[in-house]
């Protein structure tokens, strides 16, 4: 099955995924908004209501490594979410692709990466229960890359405050024979304050360790930074976060910024 998927040409997959993304965008009607994300690196525990659709456009810019100050990577992700029930949502990452440039980059330019499918199941409510919780699972596949990711999502909402924490583990297989193995352990957390029903501000943090061959631990990388979320009175919203590296891992970017724009229909 792995070899069959890899046999489709890269151009065909890239074209198909972009067409799917455009088609999904065109389906957007001016319906009222069903969801807003207050964080870009942290998932919240609530899901889309049953029958609701949402398109999310992700753009992540990573830049400035100590080993390569000219380093730039811009990642694009097109996601379509659907509320299967009031507690379970499915997400399709129609296409993940990126542009990379820098002195340390051997093959700079645009590169299509992967498709992915994700599911989130809500267990408890962040407002009325002791602690909001949800389970997240994702399967990702692309050109010479397979990955499985699991997350425990925790959240608590108190008055206008919103606290969220994710515990993440990802297993990746890359290369022609998928024999390059890597595990990733990650924690993300965020705090957000709702100034009014349209605007929230806060900050997010990220901590990540990679394990080559699932055994050899790499450096701890930690980022912190502010975020801003806006929810319109119609069917769209956006959230933006800027993260700055708090550790001193030369091979990782010192700055990364993520923008999410959502359209509900």
């Amino acid at each position, binding site marked *: 099955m792995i070899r069959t998927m890899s046999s489709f040409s890269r151009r065909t997959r890239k074209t198909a995924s972009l067409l799917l993304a455009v088609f999904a965008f065109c389906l957007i009607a001016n319906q009222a908004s*069903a969801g807003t994300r207050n964080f870009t690196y942290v998932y919240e525990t609530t899901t889309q209501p049953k029958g609701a659709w949402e398109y999310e456009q992700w753009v992540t810019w990573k830049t400035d490594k100590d080993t390569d100050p000219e380093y730039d990577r811009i990642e694009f992700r097109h996601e379509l979410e659907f*509320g299967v029930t009031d507690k379970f949502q499915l997400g399709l990452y129609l296409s993940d692709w990126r542009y990379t440039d820098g002195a340390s980059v051997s093959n700079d330019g645009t590169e299509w990466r992967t498709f992915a499918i994700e599911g989130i199941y809500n267990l408890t409510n*962040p*407002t009325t229960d002791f602690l909001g919780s949800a389970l997240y699972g994702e399967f990702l596949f692309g050109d010479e890359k397979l990955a499985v990711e699991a997350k425990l999502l925790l959240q608590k*909402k108190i008055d206008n*405050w919103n606290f969220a924490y994710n515990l993440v583990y990802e297993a990746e297989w890359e290369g022609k024979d998928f024999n390059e193995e890597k595990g990733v352990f990650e924690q993300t*957390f965020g705090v957000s304050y709702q100034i009014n029903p349209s605007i929230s501000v806060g900050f997010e943090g990220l901590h990540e360790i990679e394990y080559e061959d699932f055994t050899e631990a790499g450096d701890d990388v*930690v980022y912190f930074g502010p975020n801003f979320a806006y929810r319109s009175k119609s069917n769209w919203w956006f959230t933006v976060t800027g993260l700055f590296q*708090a*550790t001193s891992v030369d091979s990782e970017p010192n700055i990364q910024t993520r923008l999410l724009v959502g359209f509900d229909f």
Partner: protein
Amino acid sequence: MRQMIHDCQLFANRALPTLFLVSAGLLVSACTDNLITRFPPPDVALLQQAQQADPAITMADLDHGRKLYLTNCTACHSAEPIGRYSLSDWQVILPDMSAESKFNAKQGRDVSAYVLSYRRMLAQQSTR
């Protein structure tokens, strides 16, 4: 500078997740009491208020409406204090929000019954 970064790294690795969970735990009881105060469970007085507008409303419908308000509505924003908006504002807000939340007819009716009845009671209490 290097020591500061190292200390920051240690703190981030070990303390912050625990700190977050402990803080959330310490705030829970206050939160629970706050919810009951700000969004009281329906009682006989609220039911009588609701039945003036819709005689078919039951206590279970009001309880259902309260639950929907505190769970579904807070998926996108915090639980707005009901007294923050006027009755006429709520009569505009509720149909829009019900559509956003993909409520069916009964869900929309129940959440409206709870919010509007409680808002009317707040208005009556303020004029006494």
